[in-house]
């Protein structure tokens, strides 16, 4: 699991590469949580995430709760079709702002 964090103009761009599961989710959690300050904007680019386990989805939900509590904004981009379908079927999808591309994600901030 590779986590890359870049400060762009007005938002944090977090790029994940690798599978997010019970083993890697805590790492992702530790890396992103400090970013969820009040009024910040975060784009999570998951173009390079082939698979996300149940624990991975729960981590996303945790991030969503954290950002919402802090009035921060979270946008997910580049999710695979299968991942979107899994999120839809299991009820996770409705909580998130999701865009296909980074540009669309920026526009959604």
């Amino acid at each position, binding site marked *: 699991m590779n986590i890359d964090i870049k400060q762009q103009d007005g938002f944090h761009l977090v790029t994940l590469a690798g599978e997010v*599961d*019970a*083993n890697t989710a805590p790492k992702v959690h530790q890396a992103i949580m400090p970013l969820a300050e009040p009024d910040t904007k975060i784009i999570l680019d998951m173009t390079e995430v082939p698979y996300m*386990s*149940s*624990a991975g*989805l*729960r981590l996303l*939900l945790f991030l969503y709760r954290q950002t919402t509590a802090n009035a921060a904004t979270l946008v997910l981009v580049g999710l695979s079709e299968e991942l979107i*379908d*899994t999120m839809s*079927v*299991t*009820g*996770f999808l409705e*909580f998130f702002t999701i865009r296909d591309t980074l540009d669309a994600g920026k526009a959604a901030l």
Partner: protein
Amino acid sequence: MERIDIHPTHEINGRKLRCGQPFPFGAMLVPGGVNFAIYSSHASSCTLVLFNKKEPQPFAEIPFPEAFRIGNVFCMTVFDLDYENLEYGYRMDGPNNFQAGHWFDTSKILLDPYAKIVSGRDVWGVQPDWNDIYQHRGRISFDDFDWQDDRPLDIPLEDMIIYEMHARGFTKDESARIKDSHRGTFAGIRDKISYLQELGVNTIELMPIFEFDEFENSRRHPETGELLLNYWGYSTVNFFAPKAGYAATGKFGMQTDELKTLVKELHKVGIAVILDVVFNHTAEGNERGPTISFRGIDNKTYYMLTPEGYYFNFSGTGNTLNCNNPIVRGMVLDCLRYWTAEFHIDGFRFDLASILGRDPWGFPLANPPLLETLAFDPILARSKLIAEAWDAGGLYQVGSFPNYGRWAEWNGKYRDSVRKFIKGDLGLVGEMAQRIQGSPDLYQAAGRPPSTSINFITAHDGFTLADLVSYNGKHNEANGEHNNDGANDNYSWNCGIEGPTDNIYIQALRHKLMRNAMAILMVSQGVPMILMGDEFGRTQYGNNNTYCHDSPLNWLNWNLLEKEKDWFRFVQYCIAFRHAHPVFRNAEHFQNCDYLGTGYPDISWHGVQAWHADWSATSRVLAFMLCGQHAKGGKVKDNQIYVAMNMHHESLWFNLPEPPLGQAWYVFANTGAKPPEDIHWPGSEPRLDSQSGLLVGDRSLVILLAK
């Protein structure tokens, strides 16, 4: 200040442990680890066996220290586990003595009866590794679903219209036209919610969805070579886990989230969910069956045993769960509480429920503790409890099921009366009068309301509605038992030719009989239940026991919807009519008198002459009128409704009772008319030409309302 109990106190084989919580049973996430608790009345010792997901060999075996046993419960917290990829089981040591009823065998790895997720059959129909030492593996669930504001719907029972369906069969066929990966799954049902809304049902009843093994007793058909599976699933492996193979996400172990999402989405549009539950036996079969869980953990506690140690077989499937043993009763209660609280399930239909009223030796109890416990439980207080009030051991309790004012019943007598009546049998009008009123002959004396009666004409067991009017006898050769299985008392009629026919007269007659059946069902007091696919003429080609077919024989063919649009429209309008008129949905029995001084009795009986019903043994004719002023005991105002049923093979002129002053009769349905004149959308009924009477065609019925 950090809690101290997140630190281990013991170490065994390099694993960090603490004495656990003996309650609740099962495996539960606790800070830093997982708490395991399992009980056995007769085991001398127990070992926790841990696997990584899908690995053939365990990575750890941890015997419970003596100090970690409280009463008969082994409990232990294990720290630092990768709980998402964990599969767990137990080995139990103790006496092995068939006659004494003990089957302890440390070579077997046993599934926790309280496991919330079970893996091993993750994708339906994929052959498992038969050499695997642990076939059905317990896993740990998160139980953290966000329900938002959802809770069970609490629809009054008398307002329910139930749609009995098979979770896989509903959308498995290509003709469902949904995403391939969703076909045959909970996600697929969700994709079809708008269809259920269009049909108008407000409750679905899912045939068993607890984890079962579709390969149990699977075999090749001796002649056709077709693989026959345990398709219906009336054979539970574990009572707390939804069937992984019914979830599109089962391969990821996310079946609980998928099912909860389905329930939540159904609730959003006002559709309740009832589960068909099977507590009368388990998948372990008789003494030749597999050891999966209960048998190896506490055989003598879980099963009814003969003095020689054999299994009593009141279920017809090899064993009988010992439901009135206090420990097993506790498990059943825990299970239903879990499904109610954790999955927001609205109610339960209990397969062969009469078994639940037998004592450990099989004798029917006057006051069965389990049935009483469920009836009075605070968590189940608003859950619908529906009994299939008979069992395979000869106990038949329709009308006499121990009910505590709470239990409804599948009314098998309703099914048989209506079937005989619509095919023209004589001497049924008296019985039909009872059935239409919600069977007061069965329920009123005991103070049980009309909604006690779950009215159905077809269900998964037996013919579909289209087959009921197309076959005189069952045709179960495809089951590979030489047509010896399945019921013989079908009260069906093929209308002149056995099976499919191009004869348009016979086709028209069959449709007319189906319309009669559906219309009677929807104007009867009680709770109507229809079978999946009957609304567009689903056929099983005369097979009345399709428990073993994972094939188009059982998969709903959605293409029929287009072919049968007239018939579908009839069903849809009948459902809408019932929803529109509370007079069909009374909470109390009729009194057959005018107790409100409206000028009309709450229900009155008629024949070809108004106010003169023919109750004779040769009569095939019955008409009745419901007084709208008496709807729901006079609490709401509804229209006057008149229903004339002519099951005779000749047309008859019916002289009509007067509608209320200043009103006239309007025609909602006439099953003898050609579509689209057979039925009208509620509210747009045309006025009847002659208000004094009408001709009701042969084997037809007419529904009028006054306005």
